[in-house]
């Protein structure tokens, strides 16, 4: 059976929910939920999200090529559902989070430990009326047995200026035998803050799920809202959103390439990447009024138009990056001591990135040729041709090279967007009287962000779920470091640069 027909079959089995756009949402029974789970397990379908709701659990599934998506919903009147993680590991942490926040118990779950709930909330979270008793007991790490093994616990507060999380390394001498992550430290309760929020406030929250991807999140949220309300932003706004998104991509890749090189004791690259990154942020501030471009993308359009002088500023920026960045790439390529650290380090196999549907450079460095700007695609990328680099070696080096090529691709994209900037308004007023449900994907610098939203008639958010690319990348970092030396962990970690905040919500 083709993946398309498997999805179509599954959808035909359930009841389609009215007013869910642009992809369908289907209410299915337990038997079909198990069928969907089996299709995920055997790779016929890919998992793109799983989240709780009042008395129900939802799952976003896609064809492996991401050319078709759907949300399937299972009512859970008794608060339980058959575990998806039981046969499809990428669902495990999402199920643990759904249990924390909604009290939904996944039956036969392989890992029922709490995840975001560390037993410290003063009142029960979101959809729960009680505390999770097992979260109040000490967290039990996975057992490790073997001769000559020692454990190295790190965090939640790390040595550098980075987000908090706990890493437990089990090592044999210098070699890492296992890494176990414990996350959730920066859980802010974003799902709960979203419920009942006005669209304006909800957009601000969405733009702060992971600050480094504020533009991508704001775009995904705006698309989901616009889909739910059956509207879309004017062409000029769509083009300006993409200009901002590509600036954000360039800035983050520059920062991370510099940081990876810095961790390999090559600070020259770090300094130069830092200069270019600062140039991008200053151009963003001068053109759009904010260095990270927070709150510039809003449902219905954008908050700031680009003046003619702004376009000139951006063209000058592109010219500077075009003049300087190739030299940095040449230095990276020509520095043996750097390559010695990055080549062959932290390898992630193709099977794993396919299984986890891992987005961004993590997936594309290991042969997964998916970029949601292209497939399923969204405006204005659907009318632009652009390079989506893919490599096979799956190591730190490949993740750096992918980012380097993406900087080049983004530079080309911005140039063409500026050349062809549509005239007209940059925002329209959305009619939220009827409410609705929307789903959207946007490609952040680290991979695809999924946003699902239900809007009440009148325009308040009833429920929103935002899934960072990191959910399907963090577990692969555990795999990447296995068999590597402890000292290479920072390099591996930076080459991924998963979001803690985006994951912890």
């Amino acid at each position, binding site marked *: 059976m083709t993946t398309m027909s498997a999805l179509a079959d599954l959808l035909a089995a359930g009841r389609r929910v009215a007013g869910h756009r642009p992809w369908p949402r289907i209410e299915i029974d337990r038997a079909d939920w198990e069928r969907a789970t089996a299709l995920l397990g055997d790779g016929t379908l890919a998992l793109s999200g799983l989240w709780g709701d009042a008395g129900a659990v939802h799952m976003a599934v896609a064809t492996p090529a991401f050319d078709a998506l759907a949300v399937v919903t299972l009512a859970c009147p008794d608060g339980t559902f058959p575990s998806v993680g039981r046969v499809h590991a990428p669902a495990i942490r999402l199920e643990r989070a759904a249990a924390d926040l909604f009290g939904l118990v996944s039956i036969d779950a392989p890992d029922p430990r709490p995840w975001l709930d560390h037993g410290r909330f003063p009142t029960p979270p*979101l959809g729960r009326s009680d505390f999770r008793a097992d979260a109040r007991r000490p967290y039990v790490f996975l057992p490790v047995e073997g001769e000559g093994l020692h454990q190295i616990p790190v965090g939640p507060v790390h040595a550098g*200026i980075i987000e908090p999380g706990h890493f437990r390394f089990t090592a044999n001498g210098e070699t890492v035998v296992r890494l176990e992550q414990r996350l959730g*430290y920066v859980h802010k*309760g974003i799902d709960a803050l979203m419920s009942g929020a006005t669209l304006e406030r909800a957009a601000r929250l969405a733009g702060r799920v992971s600050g480094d991807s504020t533009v991508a999140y704001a775009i995904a949220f705006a698309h989901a809202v616009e889909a739910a309300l059956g509207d879309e932003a004017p062409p000029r706004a769509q083009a300006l959103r993409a200009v901002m998104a590509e600036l954000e991509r360039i800035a983050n890749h520059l920062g991370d390439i510099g940081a990876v090189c810095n961790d390999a004791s090559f600070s020259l690259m770090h300094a130069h990447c830092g200069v270019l990154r600062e140039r991008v942020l200053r151009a963003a501030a001068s053109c759009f009024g904010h260095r990270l471009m927070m709150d510039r993308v809003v449902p219905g359009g954008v908050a700031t138009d680009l003046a003619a002088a702004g376009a000139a500023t951006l063209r000058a920026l592109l010219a500077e990056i075009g003049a300087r960045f190739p030299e940095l790439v040449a230095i990276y390529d020509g520095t043996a001591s750097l390559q010695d650290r990055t080549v062959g380090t932290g390898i992630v196999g193709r099977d794993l990135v396919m299984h986890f549907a891992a987005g961004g450079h993590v997936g594309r460095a290991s042969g997964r040729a998916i970029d949601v700007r292209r497939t399923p695609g969204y405006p204005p990328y659907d009318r632009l041709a652009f390079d989506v680099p893919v490599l096979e070696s799956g190591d730190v080096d490949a993740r750096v090279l992918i980012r380097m090529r993406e900087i080049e691709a983004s530079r080309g994209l911005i140039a063409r967007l500026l050349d062809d900037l549509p005239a007209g308004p940059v925002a329209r007023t959305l009619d939220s009287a009827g409410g609705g449900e929307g789903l959207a994907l946007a490609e952040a610098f680290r991979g695809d962000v999924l946003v699902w939203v239900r809007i009440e008639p009148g325009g308040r958010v009833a429920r929103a779920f935002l899934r960072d690319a990191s959910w399907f990348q963090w577990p692969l970092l555990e795999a990447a470091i296995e068999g590597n030396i402890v000292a290479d962990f920072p390099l591996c970690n930076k080459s991924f640069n998963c979001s803690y905040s985006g994951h912890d919500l």
Partner: protein
Amino acid sequence: MRKILLENLIRGRLTEPAPAASEAALAELAGRLERSAQRRLGRSLSIREVDAGSCNGCELEIHALNNVFYDLERFGIRFVASPRHADVLMVTGPVTHNMREALERTWRATPDPKWVVAVGDCAVDGGVFGASYACVGPVAAVVPVDLHIPGCPPTPQAMLEGLLALLETSAKG
């Protein structure tokens, strides 16, 4: 080629003149002088950064302080890995309940007398995340705060002005 690049970097003189210490920060710090009276930090500060719940936007701009435009180290201000080596804690985020203990422990591990700087709107008053079951709220609800630097996120310029005020104040102490 590296030589050329290095020369470019130096010839460009990208490092910018030092801004004046922030007036608002000086005013806030003035009332704190007594607490630091025993302390002479000289013209140097060691900072330990603690993300206590941030969206990571503030961290991006704290990182920028180290780029050649702001070049924090020229003022004798540097980031250190351990709270035991720190004079200053720069704390971001609405303190989450899941990070509260880690922040308290970091604060206790920092030798006295110490300064706490709350960086960003979230750290100042909880920001957009304040009213949640998962957040304690402002940093001052958990540890005493000497200086607030608002902004979402504050620009590197604003942080630099605040830190320079701290440097001036502590040097007078």
